[in-house]
């Protein structure tokens, strides 16, 4: 893990509100695993501004990319950086997704920018699978061509019906699960909490493992401040409090003790 000055190599606009930032950061990029993240100190925010965490979307030996949505002052400032500008990047952080699928079919479930770490995962998995991707509207659906190009089965749902099926991404998941004789799956999911929880419930019913990437507000990114905790259940039934930044952000769905049981 490193904390280094990285140079902006490129900044691409993807859909409206979404951009891809490419950084020259070999020390981090060369070690990055899918599901890991970088913690960025964004140049131009006042010196006391906290860092912002972003999943790694692409990594080569020398460069790494993030795919981000502009949602607040941090990401707004990030979107203003231009090639040649520098920022400080800490990473790779977190545990990453397990790459071993144990002969199960990888089913990736993504909401919004949650597709970023899953896209990286698809490139590093030893087999093809299916991507279920949801968003509010067509602009929130990203990276589908990449998956198609890799030979993945891609299914889209939008809340307003502007692309793919009308509804939540779980509608797609339910339809697929309802089909008799579907193959045994391993789920990998990244998106809002509600979506993760829906995936967890369905995976449990199906008896499938589900690896969820949790999105908790973070401060230190290294496990020191305890801002990002999540209660987990051990196999013996006792619980402990994990730090999402260091012990996660990826957890198996069955471990997670959801906060408001329903």
């Amino acid at each position, binding site marked *: 893990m490193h904390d280094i000055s990285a140079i902006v190599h490129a900044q691409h606009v993807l859909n409206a509100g979404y951009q891809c930032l490419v950084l020259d950061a070999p020390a981090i990029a060369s070690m990055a695993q899918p599901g890991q993240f970088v913690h960025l100190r964004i140049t131009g925010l006042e010196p006391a501004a906290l860092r912002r965490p972003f999943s790694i979307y692409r990594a080569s030996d020398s460069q790494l990319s993030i795919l981000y949505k502009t949602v607040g002052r941090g990401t707004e400032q990030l979107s203003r950086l231009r090639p040649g500008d520098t920022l400080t990047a800490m990473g790779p952080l977190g545990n990453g997704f397990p790459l071993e699928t144990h002969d199960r079919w990888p089913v990736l479930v993504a909401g919004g920018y949650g597709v970023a770490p899953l896209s990286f995962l698809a490139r590093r998995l030893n087999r093809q699978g299916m991507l279920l991707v949801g968003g509010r509207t067509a602009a929130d659906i990203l990276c589908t061509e990449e998956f198609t190009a890799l030979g993945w089965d891609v299914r889209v749902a939008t809340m307003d019906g502007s692309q793919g099926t009308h509804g939540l991404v779980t509608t797609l998941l339910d339809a697929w699960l309802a089909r008799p004789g579907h193959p045994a799956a391993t789920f990998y999911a990244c998106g809002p909490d509600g979506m993760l929880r829906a995936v967890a419930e369905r995976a449990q019913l199906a008896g499938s493992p589900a690896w969820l990437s949790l999105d908790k507000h973070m401060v*230190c990114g290294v496990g*020191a401040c305890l801002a990002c905790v999540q209660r987990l259940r051990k196999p013996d039934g006792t619980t402990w409090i994990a730090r999402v930044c260091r012990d996660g952000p990826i957890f198996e769905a069955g471990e997670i003790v959801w906060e408001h049981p329903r």
Partner: protein
Amino acid sequence: MNTPPPAAAAARPDLAVTIAGIQMQNPVTVASGTFGYGKEYAHLVDLRQLGAITVKGIRLQPWDGNPLPRHVEVPGGMVNAIGLQGPGVAGFIRDYLPFLREVGVPVLVNIWGTSVEEYAEVAERLSDVEGIAGLEVNISCPNVKEGGASFGADPRTVAALVAAVRRRTRLPLIPKLAPNVPNIRPYAQAAAEAGADALSLINTIPAMVINIETRRPVLANKVGGLSGPAIHPVAVKLVWDAAQAVKIPIIAMGGITGPEQAIEFLIAGASAVAVGTATFIDPGTVLRVIAGIEDYLVRHQIQRVRDLTGSLLTT
């Protein structure tokens, strides 16, 4: 023949300080709760260079802390309500102390309880263990309902608590005082008279942030404590006031982001300083502060950092 050393080959300044009998190679530690148990930053910071390591607050038993969200960013800093999550005394000794012993710099353990008895028992339990240099007694955490701040709110309760802990341990005791008092002097004096070996100040300032769209507090705990650059001038004032009131040394913290703020604290009367929130933003801060203090001493031809302590000119 007695040749004086040539003036050009100026000796490196002496950064060592002794606080409450604890020998520190330099006057810079980390603020409790902002550096975990040292381990978490070991990949990014050469821990052996620190003056001391101050760990996250612990009580007798493991403690869950507050629900999330536990923090929110504000101009000039952040407001946190972690709520003193920790592994308890036994968990700390088992899971973290062995690593810290290996590092080889003095370890200050931040302790708290919900009763005077619990504080005293935590102190006692930590007294027999190898590798603990001193106890920072947190009587000012704004983020737990019982304990913490309630003991720090009155000089009499400060005195009673410190005296009770004093009876149960020989470890150096460093009460950590609350910033939100009309006058810090009686608090500092009460702690000193009750047997404190040094003082730590300041803790975070009680604060609150409201989400105006949901009309709810942003923090699950409703209120939290403000830290970061925003509080530095407030901390300097309190350190200066406390330093006038007591002879025991002061470890100062609050809004240090570089050597400048640390040096202000030393000039105001602190013997050592702690880097807190800034570590989250730049883990290299603490080493930058150490190097920057040294540079300053060289530049100002001050041989020993302890000569800087309390050197404020006011006439």
